[in-house]
């Protein structure tokens, strides 16, 4: 693999992770992480939207006048989000109602606009696609970790399946974990842990 692509992959998932490094897209991180299944679908939607809109912005980068580039980017992002929303509504209506307005709100997810601006407008489509893809996967990894912690502690299940011990009589379900405050606690702890690991690695390099 070319070292450039490798750098994009590692940056998206670790050094420049959208959640615990760039602290972008926190609104959906807090909102859809109480069940692992909902989170997974949300993340797939973001992977699709982010990689393709970044590539499309990059395809048009030589023609788009600078003054209106944000409008064009929003339009492209909205296009992909509406496609995802329509697919869910038509073929998976239960999931569409579960996610409620959050699919539509991917349009305003700062990660998408941020990556289109930072990478899509200056790089060719290939690297822009990869950058979008791996930033979205970086988001996915962190969200799935948060969702797993919340669902397990709050409901004693994983993907809806009861887990041993956590559904037993010795575990009193922490209902607050599936309610909104649980998202704040978990996000803070996860960010803290990952940043501490990052800091330690940086010190060693020096």
């Amino acid at each position, binding site marked *: 693999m070319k070292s450039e692509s490798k750098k994009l992959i590692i940056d998206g998932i670790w050094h420049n992770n959208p959640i615990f490094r760039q602290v972008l897209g926190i609104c959906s991180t807090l909102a859809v992480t109480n069940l692992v299944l909902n989170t997974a679908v949300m993340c797939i939607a973001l992977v699709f939207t982010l990689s393709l809109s970044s590539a499309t912005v990059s395809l*048009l980068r030589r023609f788009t006048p600078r003054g209106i580039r944000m409008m064009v980017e929003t339009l492209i992002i909205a296009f992909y989000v509406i496609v995802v929303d329509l*697919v869910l509504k038509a073929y998976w209506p239960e999931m569409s109602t579960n996610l409620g307005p959050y699919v539509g709100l991917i349009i305003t997810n700062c990660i998408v606009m941020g990556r289109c601006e930072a990478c899509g407008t200056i790089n060719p489509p290939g690297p822009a696609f990869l950058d979008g893809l791996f930033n979205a996967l970086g988001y996915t990894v962190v969200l799935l970790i948060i969702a797993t912690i919340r669902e397990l502690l709050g409901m004693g299940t994983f993907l809806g399946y009861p887990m041993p011990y956590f559904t037993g009589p010795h575990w009193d379900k922490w209902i607050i974990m599936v309610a909104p405050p649980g998202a704040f606690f978990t996000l803070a702890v996860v960010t803290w842990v990952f940043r501490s690991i990052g800091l330690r690695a940086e010190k060693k390099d020096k």
Partner: protein
Amino acid sequence: MRKKWWFPVAYMFVVTAFFSSIVIGFAQFTGDRVEANADLAFEKAVLAVLPGLLEEGESRLEIHRKFVERVGPPDEQIGGACRLTEAGRTVAYALPVEGQGFWAPIKGVIGLKDDRRTITGIAFYEQNETPGLGAQITTITFTSQFQGKVLASGDKPLNIRPPGAPLGESDVHAVTGATQTSTRLEKILNDALTQWYAKLAKISDASSTQ
């Protein structure tokens, strides 16, 4: 050409037209299916609450056909409920209920025997309660409690009691940690049932005076 004053305007216009036409085409393509999904969710809920109608793994088409053949749409003649008939005789009713939940409207169906008092089942086909908490009203654990309960007369046919409380003949337990959803659901169900009884009384009055 890119330096011309009109270029950004024309560019935006072309790009918008291009992406919009794809979205419009796609929405047209899925539109019928989206509409059918909403109808089907209701039909499936009706079949689920009536005794012995819904089987596991039935296709969308089978569900729809069964609904049309055996039950049919809500009928104002019986106060807006659906009716299950066998050999011309009514064996059960399915009453649609609707009202405001904690976050968004809750829509569901209650199934009743021909005595109009004994519950055969309950199902919710539209809700947006808190996942893991209020949303548990759609789980079997919650809905199966209703089966066989007998509605009381008066303005509170059904009671949703706190978890662990002793239960009477017309009581069920609430979902733990979802007080708001449970309180609102109790109101939705009781309002729908009392209104239905009032409508039925009016209809039978009208027919006996004729």
